């Protein structure tokens, strides 16, 4: 009986994590709105939570205790990809502003500012953005997963017994066939 439960197939929706990922990446890249990420990575947590909520609102959704984790983690992966793409688009659009900021930093005559400019020049601005975008994966894997799990915990759908109540119904259907 336990084996039947384990081998039984259930659905995993992809549109929910894609939407959640797009939401977190968009708000994380936008200049003013992205500041909310300083509050425990708010957009990333919200993105993960939204992806779980979207999936749980589906008509044929069967609750599983792991859904928050899985949808959160998936949305983080999509979010990281979208974030990379959006960052480079944004960087291209704001290239002139970045050049101006570099000149301003040099004109400040502050040793700290000069040191930063020298570092950026050493590696190249694009390379630094690329390194940082790659490094951001650590946050995009952690915080959306937490967001998904939090959403599930608050919705009260992560109790094992609730999930297992749903499963035998499906099993009975399978037995009848």
């Amino acid at each position, binding site marked *: 009986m336990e084996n039947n*439960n*384990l*081998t*039984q*197939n*259930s*659905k*995993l*929706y*992809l*549109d929910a994590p*894609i939407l959640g990922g797009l939401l977190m990446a968009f708000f*994380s890249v936008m200049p003013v709105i992205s500041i909310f*990420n*300083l509050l*425990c*990575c708010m957009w990333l947590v919200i993105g993960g939570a939204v992806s779980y909520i979207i999936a749980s609102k589906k008509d044929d959704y069967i609750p*599983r*205790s*792991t859904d*928050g*984790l*899985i949808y959160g*983690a998936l949305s983080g992966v999509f979010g990281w990809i979208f974030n990379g793409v959006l960052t480079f688009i944004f960087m291209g659009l704001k290239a002139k502003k970045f050049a101006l900021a570099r000149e301003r930093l040099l004109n400040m005559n502050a040793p700290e500012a000069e*040191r*930063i400019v020298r*570092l950026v020049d050493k590696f190249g601005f694009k390379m*630094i953005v690329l*390194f*940082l975008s790659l*490094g*951001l994966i*650590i*946050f995009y*894997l*952690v*915080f959306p*997963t*937490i967001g998904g*799990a*939090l959403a*599930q*915990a608050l919705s*009260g759908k*992560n*109790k*094992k017994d609730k999930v297992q109540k749903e*499963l035998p119904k499906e099993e009975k259907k399978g037995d009848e066939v």
Partner: protein
Amino acid sequence: MTKMEFSVSQIFIEEIETKIKIFLLVLFFILNFLIILPIFGFGDIINFFVYKLFSFVCHQSDSLSFWINGSKLAVCSRCTGIYQAFFISSVLFYFKNIKFQKTYFIKILVISIIVFIFTKIAPFFANLSLLNLLRWLSGVLIGIIFSYSIYGNGGKSGK
């Protein structure tokens, strides 16, 4: 329009759950290491990348961060609390197989909100070191909530 959904087995889901939980533990171990990396003085380049990376998720304010050996940690005192508490409580929850109970969850959530609000009032009467300690405590509670929501529904096997 094609439906964007996959059919997956329950075994696969259970396996993924365990893997995500272990992976998160490893990630938080790395994050905790990165936070204290600037105090080892590995050089400007490494410090620059670590501070820049964490600037995405933290304000890194000088006065609201812990300083060790004249070097600032990569994140503020609250975030330090979150990362440390998440890692430590996750390890405990993972091996202790704690069952999730919503009442506990809500209780910790309410306490952490109260402490969080208290840290906003504290600057009016507390000195900076006490404020940082309070901020760290609020971070610890948030970290415990985060880990409880993930590891609270079962440890190693997710059962």
